[in-house]
């Protein structure tokens, strides 16, 4: 890169803007964390602050009472995230590659077939009936893995666009002339050269699994179901329970709600849900970086 004046101005502007972005991204997190260690009563009386007056770990103690359940939930989340992401990526890439070929017979039909699923959906009730009553996935680990999250039409199309624009067609054609099979081409050309998009969409798929609580809400019920709660299900339950009880119209509601520290615990919950990602982030980042740069090296 040339060290011209224009480039220097560009770099400086970029740094200033991005530093602002860092600030805007990190400060709210700090606010969440600070609120979570502020004493409940102090929060209600003095309000939210980055420099709280009175500290308390009560919210974390409250969550820690359920320590064994939390560990279990983390385990389940980790499992579904890893397995789900791998399967998701494989299905997505296997579908996206043929769709990226300009000469695929029926290309238009298949593309439309994929896009249509983004536009129309049968709604919750029919989906639930099929999964719960026909496939019987209720209260099994499949309930967290299969519905909705296994393949996203959006990601298929993004990956298709990437394959089409960033992987030279000549490369594939040359391999075909050499007599390479399509699976061979897929694994030796598409996957290595597609790394930037694979890593990016893999990250999104992983986040999808990590952050999902709706599948658990619909398909996990009762004692057996709650044993399979992912961390988000667990935390979401705490949050919605507090909300529900605070607005309960019947007798027992207020008394139940008063037992829970509501304001600080919401923040603590939010923070607990993010800790593992924050911890894993540098590693993910490294992979991410590696994947992206590897993909960029061509030929």
């Amino acid at each position, binding site marked *: 890169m040339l060290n011209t004046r224009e480039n220097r101005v*560009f770099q400086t502007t970029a740094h200033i803007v991005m530093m602002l972005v860092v600030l805007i991204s990190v400060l709210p997190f700090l606010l969440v964390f600070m609120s979570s260690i502020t004493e409940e009563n102090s929060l209600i009386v003095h309000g939210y602050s980055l420099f709280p007056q009175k500290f308390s770990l009560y919210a974390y103690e409250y969550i820690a009472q359920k320590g064994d359940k939390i560990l279990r939930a983390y385990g389940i989340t980790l499992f579904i995230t890893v397995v789900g992401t791998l399967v998701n990526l494989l299905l997505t890439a296997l579908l996206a590659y043929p769709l990226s070929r300009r000469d695929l017979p029926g290309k238009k039909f298949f593309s439309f077939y994929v896009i249509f699923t983004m536009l129309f959906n049968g709604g919750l009730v029919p989906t639930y009936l099929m999964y719960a009553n026909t496939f019987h996935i209720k209260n099994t680990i499949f309930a967290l893995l299969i519905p909705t999250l296994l393949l996203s039409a959006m990601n298929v199309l993004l990956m298709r666009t990437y394959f089409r624009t960033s992987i030279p067609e000549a490369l594939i054609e040359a391999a075909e002339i050499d007599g390479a099979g399509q699976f061979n081409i897929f694994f030796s050309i598409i996957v290595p050269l597609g790394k930037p998009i694979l890593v990016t969409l893999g990250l999104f798929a992983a986040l999808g699994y990590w952050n999902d609580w709706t599948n658990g809400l619909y398909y996990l019920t009762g004692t057996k179901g709650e044993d399979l709660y992912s961390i988000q299900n667990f935390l979401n339950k705490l949050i919605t329970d507090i909300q529900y009880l605070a607005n309960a119209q019947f007798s027992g509601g207020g008394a139940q709600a008063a037992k829970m520290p509501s304001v600080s615990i919401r923040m603590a919950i939010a923070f607990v849900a993010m800790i593992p990602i924050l911890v894993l982030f540098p590693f993910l980042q490294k992979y991410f970086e590696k994947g992206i740069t590897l993909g960029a090296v061509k030929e």
Partner: protein
Amino acid sequence: MKVRKWAPMFIMMAPGLIYLFINNYIPMAGLVIAFKKMDFRKGIWGSDWVGFDNFKYLFTTPDAFVITRNTILYNLAFIIVNIVVGIIFAIFISEMVNKHMKQLYQSAVLLPFLMSMVIVSYIVYAILSPETGLMNKTVLPMAGKDPVSWYSETKYWPYILIIVNTWKGVGYGCLIYLASIIGIDRSLYEAADIDGAGKWVQIRTITLPMLLPSVITLTLLNVGRIFFSDFSLFYQVPQNSGILYSVTNTIDTYVYRALLQLGDTGMASAAGFYQSVIGFLLIIGCNWLVRKLDRDSALF
């Protein structure tokens, strides 16, 4: 030759296509619910047909115009802002020389993406709450200004919602663009350097044109969702404040509030069906337009 070439391709596609068939196409049969008066004793097929009765409430309401306008305008704003901001960030990050700073910036853009909208609504509340919020308690007094009752002033909310949506969502597009920029052949830039082209010219003549296919794909897909809105963003983030409805009520929040008491499956399906049909028509139209301009970028 042909068979040998394409048969493996169809095998590759099969798992994905089958999954979509099960997860998406089979439940689509349930769309008939939108045209039925559901009686679960009789089952979905046995229930009585009621024509377009379930759709009526979407159009007879005096709010029909407001909710449609809000939904469309917000989505348009989101699409445009997310593209512009996403591309700017992606270019900035991709051009960073310092590797550590690059990583830091990447994380910063992604960080808000990790949170659920419910948590975001708590953060917004912690900042804007009239009695305990950071703004009224700390920031505004420091600036010597009077406190603002954020949750009862409509004029701020279009900005707040766009900022929140961008803050939380820009990471998605940004990373897609980043991946595309990295996929651009480096020799193009090297050639430009030799020609003495400056940064700005390189961005305009190489980066942006190469990003166009991704931008078009993302935009087309978002146009298909233009009648849908993120329920949590429009319901939880404004704390369901009644005074703000004129600028926060969208089709999804309207339907939710409408069916609070009735809980009617048919009417809920009707709303979804209506949103889908509009999205479908729009995407067909836009795709046709894109096809005319650039055959390759069309979705189908």
